[in-house]
């Protein structure tokens, strides 16, 4: 039950973030929106890290392969694209298309075993799932 509430809140916050950012970007620039929201998020996360006494874990970052450390920079493009998409096609279509691209990309990465992940064959139900999602989006967009 507790887990369910956390999952629903987590998903709700993801969508709310996109909506809030697209509202903010009506008043200030989209890049500025991405800059401000990630700055305040960073400050808060860092504060929690320090208060929770996890500063030592900062050292652990050295053990991570450098390529994986730069994932955060994608956030700039993600926020920008998310906001721009919401302006053009609304929240529902944006979230739907993002989910399809997200799961589709995951399948492609798994299939090719990129980033040292175990190579996995695409299974029929997965293809079927993505096909259903695409069909659903087409119905939404009609």
């Amino acid at each position, binding site marked *: 039950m507790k887990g*369910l509430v956390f999952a629903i809140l987590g998903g709700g916050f993801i969508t709310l973030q996109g909506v809030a950012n697209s509202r903010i970007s009506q008043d200030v620039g989209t890049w500025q929106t991405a800059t401000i929201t990630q700055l305040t998020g960073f400050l808060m996360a860092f504060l929690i890290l320090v208060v929770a006494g996890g500063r030592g874990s900062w050292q652990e970052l050295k053990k991570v392969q450098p390529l994986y450390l730069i994932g955060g920079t994608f956030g700039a493009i993600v926020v920008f694209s998310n906001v721009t998409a919401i302006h053009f096609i609304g929240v529902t279509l944006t979230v739907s298309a993002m989910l399809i691209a997200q799961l589709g990309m995951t399948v492609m990465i798994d299939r090719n075993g990129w980033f040292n992940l175990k190579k996995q064959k695409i299974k029929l139900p997965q293809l079927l*799932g*993505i096909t259903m999602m695409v069909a659903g989006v087409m119905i939404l967009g009609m």
Partner: protein
Amino acid sequence: MVFGLLFAIVAGALVSLQNIFNSKVNEKAGSWATTSLVLGLGFAASLVLGLAFEGGQVFNFSQMKWWYWFSGLLGIGVVTGIVQAIKYLGPTFAISIVLTSQLGFAVLWDSLGWMGLEKVPFTQQQFIGVLIILGGVILFKWSERKAT
């Protein structure tokens, strides 16, 4: 419309890459150090791109409303929600619910037209579309689980 979809697809593909990269960082450094790093870099990259495309305008705060400063804190809610949900439910079930909730709230926001969004009335056709998408998400996530 095609333009909007393209942006959404780029965002989704990058989120998937980011999830993989971040989870590798997470294994070693824990969720708060990872979140700090990810948002810190996102901030830096946005600032650089902002300076490139909008110039000094990036530092013009005259149009800012007070709550704009707090929107970034939603990210903390996202991380907490997902990390805790996975702890209680395991990744497959947790992420299925997260994705469902994401889409559910999207429909809610569109149909209510909150926060300056253009109000999109919730029709039967939309209901069917969302239902099919959800069916696809759940089918995908559960077949993924069987694989491992």
